[in-house]
């Protein structure tokens, strides 16, 4: 699972109101290069919860993202340094083994072979 997906995931146990973002416990992280596409990144940037992404990237061992969300000028500028970092964080690092932890309840969802198991137990739905 990549961080673009992590940024869209929340814990939906019944009654939980703050199920986002899930904290990452990384045991194994892999990197895989993909083509750089600025338009796609600009489109996605608007939908990303910045703080969640910064923290998730850090948990995966990538600390290059700026703490505060850059403004639109940076996204649109000809200098692609920032977009390259965003690209790497969103699309190139994969959580292979580890867990996702609900920020409210502490419930752990395992991640094996890159697949988060978000299935709920009967008493959680």
């Amino acid at each position: 699972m990549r961080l673009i997906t992590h940024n869209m995931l929340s814990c939906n146990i019944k009654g939980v109101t703050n199920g986002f973002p899930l904290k990452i416990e990384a045991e194994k992280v892999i990197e895989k290069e993909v083509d750089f596409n600025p338009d796609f990144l600009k489109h996605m940037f608007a939908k990303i919860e910045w703080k969640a992404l910064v923290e998730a990237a850090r948990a995966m061992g990538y600390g290059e993202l700026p703490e505060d969300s850059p403004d639109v000028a940076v996204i649109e500028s000809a200098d692609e340094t920032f977009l390259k970092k965003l690209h790497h964080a969103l699309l190139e690092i994969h959580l292979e083994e580890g867990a996702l932890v609900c920020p409210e309840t502490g419930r752990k969802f395992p991640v094996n072979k890159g697949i988060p198991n978000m299935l709920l137990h009967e008493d959680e739905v």
Partner: protein
Amino acid sequence: MSETPPEIADIMRVSSHREVYEPCDDSFALVDALLTDQTNLINHKPNICMEIGCGSGYVITSLILLLKSKLSNIHYLATDTNPLAAKVTTETLEAHGLKADVICTDIASCLETRLAGLVDVMVVNPPYVPTPEYEVGMEGIASSWAGGENGRSVIDRMLPVVDRLLSEKGWFYLVTLSCNYPSEICLMMRKRGFAWRILVQRSTEEENLIILKFWRDGEEVERLEEETISDEFSRSLSLFMRKQ
């Protein structure tokens, strides 16, 4: 017509497991529907595509291959309640040199909040076989076909989720059987502001498959007579069958 053969998943490279649904007539019909619509899909320029109930991964792999040469950097997501299916899907993707994010979840429940309004293409081959209600969602292979009353239990739960996740320009491809009362499904989607079209109709020995495509048509529907849609549906179906 086209110089290169259609790029879809290679059945020899589709991974399998005895508890995971193998690609079957319904899967092939869905991929054929996507092939019929390939040019439209490319012009549609989706950013996020998603499959609910990915099973062996045959369909999502085909969708990726269909779009890959023309569009780069689409984000692909796939879900299934069966952990073995999720695993087999990643194996199938890998065997084709592809990657998508696969998540084990009920329909899309862990994505509903944050992914709302972002999915441009949704494909679903749901469990659609009419069965006793208790068989729905059982563990293992039965949950890949068991659809409860009229085969509609899971489908009817999916429709509002799909509406929620689809973007303004979102498209939705759905496998149905004639015994699922597809005209009723069209009516339910019509009430949510979607228009529909039949993309593929195919009768096999056991079932009469109909692949539907839905899109938002911007029209608010105030009053809708069930008969109107039902008539419309029968008309397009017979028109469609005559063309074949």
